[in-house]
């Protein structure tokens, strides 16, 4: 390798590594600050690696600030949305992919064009509706707008369309009902897309902020992001504890993502070729 090529290579790696530092450093700082004794974060120059560490902020969060409750709220909501919407979306996706029925094209076009409507438009009437139904400050209040998603139906439909009709026909000749076919043939074959969609839905629900902020006004119902935003107002000076709260909020989605990342990455790519 000649001299200028080597310089170029060092330069290239330099930039790429600076990029890694920029994306990773805030997280490292978050973790290390969350382990600092109270007050150490308010120090100049900033400390990146504390000499003494403590778990006191995590303890405080769990014992005095009800974080376990918020964690469970988030977990229950995200899991319910994921499971229910997966069933609803896959049923509809199956119908759109493998059935002929009057109004199919029109309905599908209507759904696709509705994707341009931002969710914020629905929020005011939806709030009034759920308020009337007594669902404000309940899990259902959060779950209901996520029961089904047009995007999810679309993704599943695309995938199921690639399953050969002959498989379904053969099962029908053997006397299988449509529900049996859906449950025992379609769902197992569509597993990759279902895992991808489950991952997207779960992480989306976990990270969601605006809707839970609107529908949850009682402290005991808060999800982690809402609780964290609220905590930020009250404990703005307590940097170390806020960081511990951030770690608790981020860690579950991060673990889920890291274990299933290939499904997630594929989901993004599928979404990008849909047009």
């Amino acid at each position, binding site marked *: 390798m000649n001299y200028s090529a080597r310089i170029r290579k060092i330069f290239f790696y330099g*930039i790429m590594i600076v*990029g890694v530092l920029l994306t990773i450093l805030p997280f490292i700082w978050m973790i290390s*600050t969350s382990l600092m004794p109270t007050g150490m974060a308010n120090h100049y120059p900033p400390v990146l690696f504390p000499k003494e560490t403590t778990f006191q902020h995590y303890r405080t969060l769990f014992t005095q600030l009800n974080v376990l409750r918020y964690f469970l709220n988030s977990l229950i909501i995200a899991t319910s949305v994921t499971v229910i919407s997966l069933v609803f979306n896959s*049923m509809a996706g199956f*119908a759109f992919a493998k*059935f002929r029925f009057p109004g199919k094209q029109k309905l599908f076009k209507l759904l696709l064009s509705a994707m341009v409507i*931002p969710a914020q438009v629905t929020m005011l009437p939806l709030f009034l509706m759920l308020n009337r139904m007594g669902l404000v400050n309940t899990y259902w209040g959060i779950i209901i707008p996520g029961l089904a998603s047009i995007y999810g139906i679309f993704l599943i439909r695309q995938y199921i369309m690639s399953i050969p009709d002959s498989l379904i026909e053969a099962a029908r000749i053997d006397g299988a009902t449509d529900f049996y076919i859906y449950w025992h043939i379609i769902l197992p074959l569509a597993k990759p897309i279902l895992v991808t969609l489950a991952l997207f839905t779960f992480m989306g629900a976990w990270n969601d902020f605006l809707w839970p902020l609107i529908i949850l006004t009682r402290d005991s119902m808060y999800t982690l992001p809402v609780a964290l935003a609220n905590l930020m107002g009250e404990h703005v000076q307590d940097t170390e504890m806020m960081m511990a709260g951030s770690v608790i909020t981020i860690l579950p989605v991060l673990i889920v993502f890291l274990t299933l990342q290939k499904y997630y990455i594929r989901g993004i790519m599928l979404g990008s070729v849909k047009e």
Partner: protein
Amino acid sequence: MKSLVAEEKYRWSTAYLFLAPAMAAIFVFFFLPVLAALLMSFTDFDIYSIGNTSNARFVGLANYRNLLQNPLFWKALRNTGYFVLVGVPLSIFASMFAALGVNSKRLHFRSLFRLSYFLPVVTTLVAVAVIWRYIYHPRFGLINYLMGIFGIQPVDWLGNPHWAMPALIIMAVWKGFGYNMIIFIAGLQNIPETLYEAAHLDGANRWQEFRYVTLPMLAQTTGFITITTLIGYCQFFAEPYVMTQGGPLNSTLSIVLLMYQEGFRYWRMGYSAALAFILFGIILIVTLIQLRLQRHHEL
């Protein structure tokens, strides 16, 4: 043996059965509220109407007229425009740059680089805001410390009306660029290797390769990314809500934040619904323009 007609009818009814749960949910909890919001935007629906809907009166276009006369609306619109016009190109540029780097065959540990660039995408925005508020801290923050090393005066990032928006943009780009990076990588991998070989034979240098092979071949991907990113950035809310509450001096007040405040803090729901429809209109126009441009580009 069932007749063919009966068989066909039976199929239809099964199809509707499979569609029913999802369609019911989407019609009742999406389409119905959209229509209700449209109606609401022509009324003076407020806190007294929540208990009794008949207290709301039809006011025609008054909400829209009031909005257009309200300086706060124009402020929010300008701020959102600022966020979109600076943030979107920056974000796309960062995504493309990262994708080119990560996709380069000269790079070892490519998946590790890709993973670390992608990490901010999957994290919770509110938690990320906590970290960034600390990074932007005027006295103890990392950025001012680093600037201090080079002798630059500290900046009160989130407390200064001129710097608050750039600070939010930097955070948003940092948080989101990894997503489009993945899409760009997919686009890059779809470019046939033979094109680069041909360019190489023609004596093209790296820049020319990028300019005349990579960039045109990525045009469709870039178009898609531009639309989705624009739509996403038009709806920015959590960043100013958590970091600045729209301040200082409303310098980070966004359309959605204004909508939230009017609707759910002051309960001026008719007014807020009108704002939501203006947001929808903006998104629709942006999408149509972008689609038109793209079609034009392909011809």
